[in-house]
């Protein structure tokens, strides 16, 4: 399973996204606002989930801002930190 797919399943299960499947989530779809509709508290949860599932802590909030745009950007951030 790719990082993107894993992230989608984590989002659906851990954030209790109802009536939505992994296939419904576009890689480039914005996570917050008009995209997937997540909000600021979901962002906190997402930071925790990334740490719990991937062992990666988002320490630099500017970096986090860039990473938390979409599934694609978050997956790229995680993969980048893994290979660093």
């Amino acid at each position, binding site marked *: 399973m790719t990082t993107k797919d894993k992230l989608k399943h984590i989002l659906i299960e851990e*954030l*209790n996204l109802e009536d939505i499947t992994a296939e419904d989530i576009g890689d480039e779809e914005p996570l917050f606002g008009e995209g997937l509709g997540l*909000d*600021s*508290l979901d962002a*906190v949860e997402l*930071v925790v989930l990334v740490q719990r599932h991937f062992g990666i802590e988002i320490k630099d*909030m500017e970096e986090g801002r860039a990473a938390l745009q979409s599934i694609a950007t978050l997956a790229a951030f995680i993969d980048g930190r893994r290979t660093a």
Partner: protein
Amino acid sequence: MPPSESTTTIDGRRIGNPLGHRIFYALIRVAGRRAAYALLRCVIFYYVLLRPSVRQNTLHYLRRRFPGHAPVERFFDSYRMCFEFGKVLVDRAVMGIRGPGEFQISLRGREQLLGLLAEGKGLVLVTAHVGCWQVAMATLGCLETPVNMLMRREEGELDRHYFEHSGENPYRIIDPAGFLGGTLEMLGVLKQGEVLCVMGDRVTGSARNAVPVDFLGGRAAFPFSAFKLASTTGAPVVVMFTCKTGPGSYALELARVIRVSRDLGRSGEAAAPYVAEFAEALEGFVEKYPYQFFNFFDLWNQSTDSR
């Protein structure tokens, strides 16, 4: 001071009109705080007597705090509450214009705060719209740790924050209208071991971020974001309230320390016990200082939609 274009709500800092505020600032400069209080009595009487919407804004709370009061008593409750609020606005301007030396401000619980900060996980300071929190927050400088405040300048606000008079801001402001409601910034400052101050009695943003808990005999909506941040970072939550203790004195009191369990989860229900602790502490404050509660929103009639 019957204004022609005044706004009559007292949600936050919109009461009065720009000229009225400038008159008060000038009076403070020329004649001092007591003269401003004297003018304030007349202005507040005008507003409470002739602007029903102002009185109405106080009644959400007063009906619950003094359920047995007759309409006449309630009128004077409204007057007193608005006058106390006006004094706080005057005091805030006095502090900015004439300097903090005008007031004696005591910090009760300093050693405990220093102990909590020494844990190195930051500190979530949850307060409320009571007393004069801006004046009292200035005392947090003694902690020698950066203080960050989640607050937003609303359109239409007329009154100035006290530091806007002097130009020196004692704390860094995090704007809840920023990216993701400032959440990432808040997480960042806590991870750096700093102090994060939030208002625990005002729901901003999504109704999903609030949970109903018991408060003054009813179910009132309070936000739980602060407790979620504490859960994520492991930071202790301290509930602190400011109160006017005399004509020229304020106190910032540590009311309660709340330890939030890690991995609280997204739901409001999980955070409810901690929010209830905050509400209980706030109830204790308004029992002691009934006319220093300046949250003019109807907390008991706000929707919540926590997952």
